[in-house]
């Protein structure tokens, strides 16, 4: 039986394709097996908020191990109490990397600890390759990595880059103040600490990746169209906010933004706000226990009317499938969740995804150099606060290298006990709207509720 030319050609094509595909799979490099994943957790478990961060990492490790581990290997972890002291942290770091053989070290601490660990890590790395991760503010960490990459490539700041934390996020807050709360005159109170230098004075740093510029908060507010009627710095640990609040009122402020961290006594601030002449002025602290839903109880309800990012809500917009389950698991352990706890949890997942990516390419997942490259390349799809598009560590724009482009959290208002309502998406600001995926709002966030003036809420 004669075979037509067309059929013959088809057979040849099929045979070539089959042989080609088979050859592809047969020649595909096979990754060597992963030997171990050892994560060292360096933090201070005696302070409740820091304990929560260490526990957050453990929740992620337990989940991953329960799901079969990383490439079938269970994560091992050990904890060290750094007491938030540089010398103790250094000793713990050496012990973790040299004696125990940790390949991944996650540090919670002050920036001085991280900077000291980076120096020590640079000496250790050639003999003991590992990744050092830090969840916290300190632009210097990132700048060191940018300017001396070969020396410090093992260091990552698993937090928002300074530009995002100190410019984009306040810009979102100011934008919502103007457009959601409808205010035009604002007061800015700034914690007088090293991390707020840019917020107070502005910064301009030249790096190998270009210039990083940060405007002071007053200029950002002016660009949004707000009039800054009062600006003051207050000392870390301040207990008497009455003079600041009185002055903000006297200057005609309609909204008070407080650039605070955990070192600011936000509980006292809010209690005194609610008892002061300024209590009808909107108040929005930045960082601190105001990130917790229990802030209502801590202040005895004085938080009524206060605006804040709140990361402790069990039905927080599900940025990833892990967001809500993580918060619930932490609550089940009697722990509270602030922004950093989310980042600690997510850091463990980012490690997992990077290792798996290396193996997928057929490379050695035990090779830390390869994992570092993967961390720079692979977005974390499990991040609980950052959409995948922003959960990247390799961006070279605006000093974001080895840190995240940042979270722009939605704004909530405490409108009653167990009534914390979403009043602003936080990302509507055209300043950075284009940086979020097109359907981000519809996908993750619920409908907005109208904000209410504190006086209106008090009337019930």
């Amino acid at each position, binding site marked *: 039986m004669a075979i037509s030319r067309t059929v013959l050609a088809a057979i040849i094509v099929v045979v070539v394709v089959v042989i080609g595909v088979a050859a592809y799979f047969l020649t595909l490099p096979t990754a060597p097996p992963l030997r171990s994943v050892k994560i060292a957790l360096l933090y201070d478990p005696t302070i409740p908020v820091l304990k929560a961060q260490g526990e957050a990492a453990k929740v992620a490790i337990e989940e991953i191990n329960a799901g079969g581990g990383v490439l079938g290997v269970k994560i091992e972890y050990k904890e060290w109490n750094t007491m938030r002291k540089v010398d103790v942290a250094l000793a713990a770091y050496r012990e973790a990397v040299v004696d125990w053989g940790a390949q991944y070290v996650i540090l919670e601490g002050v920036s001085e600890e991280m900077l000291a660990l980076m120096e020590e890590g640079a000496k250790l790395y050639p003999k003991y390759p590992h990744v050092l991760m830090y969840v916290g503010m300190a632009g210097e960490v990132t700048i060191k990595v940018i300017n001396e990459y070969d020396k410090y490539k093992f260091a990552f700041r698993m937090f928002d880059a300074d530009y995002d934390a100190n410019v984009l996020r306040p810009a979102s807050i100011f934008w919502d103040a103007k457009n959601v709360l409808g205010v035009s005159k604002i007061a800015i109170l700034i914690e007088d600490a090293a991390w707020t230098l840019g917020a107070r004075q502005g910064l301009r740093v030249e790096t190998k990746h270009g210039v990083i510029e940060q405007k002071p908060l007053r200029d950002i507010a002016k660009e949004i169209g707000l009039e800054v009627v009062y600006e003051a710095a207050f000392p870390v640990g301040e207990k008497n906010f009455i*003079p600041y609040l009185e002055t903000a009122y006297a200057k005609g402020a309609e909204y008070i933004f407080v650039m605070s961290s955990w070192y600011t006594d936000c*509980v006292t601030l809010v209690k005194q706000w609610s008892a002061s002449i300024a209590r009808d002025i909107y108040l929005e602290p930045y960082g601190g*226990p105001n990130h*917790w839903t229990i802030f209502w109880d801590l202040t005895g309800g004085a938080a009524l009317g206060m605006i804040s990012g709140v990361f402790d809500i069990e039905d927080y917009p599900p940025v990833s499938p892990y967001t809500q389950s993580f918060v619930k698991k932490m609550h089940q352990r009697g722990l509270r969740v602030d922004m950093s706890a989310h980042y600690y949890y997510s850091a463990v997942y980012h490690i997992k995804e990077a290792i798996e990516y290396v193996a997928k390419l057929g490379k050695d997942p035990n090779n830390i150099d390869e994992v570092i490259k993967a961390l720079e390349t692979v977005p974390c799809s499990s991040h609980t606060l950052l959409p995948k598009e922003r959960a990247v560590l390799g961006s070279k724009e605006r000093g974001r290298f080895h840190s995240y482009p940042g979270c722009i959290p939605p704004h909530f208002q405490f409108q009653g006990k167990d009534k914390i309502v979403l009043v602003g998406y936080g990302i509507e600001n055209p300043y950075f709207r284009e940086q979020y995926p097109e359907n981000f709002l519809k996908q993750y966030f619920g409908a907005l509720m109208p904000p209410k003036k504190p006086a209106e809420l008090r009337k019930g």
Partner: protein
Amino acid sequence: MYAELVLTLIYTFIFGSLYLGIALGFSIIAGILRIFYIAYPVLFLIPAYGTWMFWRDVGLSFELSIILSFALMFAVSVVIYKFVINKFLEVEDYMLVAFLLVFLVVQEVINLVYPEAAGVYLPTLIIPGTIDVGPLKIPGQFLLVSIASMAMMALYIALFVKTKTGLIMRAISQSYLYSKVMGINFDLMFVIAMIIASIPPGVVMLLISPVWAFNPHIGWTLFAYGIMVAVLGGLGNLRGTIIAAYVIGFVHSVVAFAFYQPRLGSLICLIVVVVILALRPRGLARAETVW
């Protein structure tokens, strides 16, 4: 300018009275027992966290919980007297270390049982919001604490000046040795002094907590204010304590409301204290007697 002046005066009264209330118990102990009572911060913590414990954990009424927490504080004061002061009165360095340990143990136990995340809060807000004082609106609860502090001060002055017990305490504070010769029951007088001195910090803590920091570490912060006032006034002298409290209150208010520099308030207060102590090393009032 008028508004700044009125604000300065009113807040001199408020801040000054608050500092007075904080320092009062410490000055009494320093004046009568002649000791530097580093365990003083527990007197802020026990009534506050004791109230919470009896109220929320034991399930008693709030009012009864307050009473029991003060009873607990009196008991702790007596225990400290019996087992620390009585034992180490002649060995001051041992006594100071023991005080410090007592304070740290109490603080850490509280921090363990009621960490900040536990959301401890006492509903002792009696005057919510502000009240009108002339053209100004003043935080009502602050004003209440100020008045309570002044009232306690007045009561203690009356006690020391008008009663026989007060006379004995003044005698002890003037001369421990001669009082002993006169046959005074020291144990009883010291225990009474410890108990009456523990009341002001407890009252201040309960009343100030709705508008001030309230956490397991607040005792030491308040104690720092107390030391500053007591030392400036002349350790152990209530007249000096009153003057010093209002001097510091005035400096804070002037810096905050007349010069709009609240950031510098604490620093300038410390500079004022240093300058005054350089000129008058024993404080504003000579510390020979409690009153």
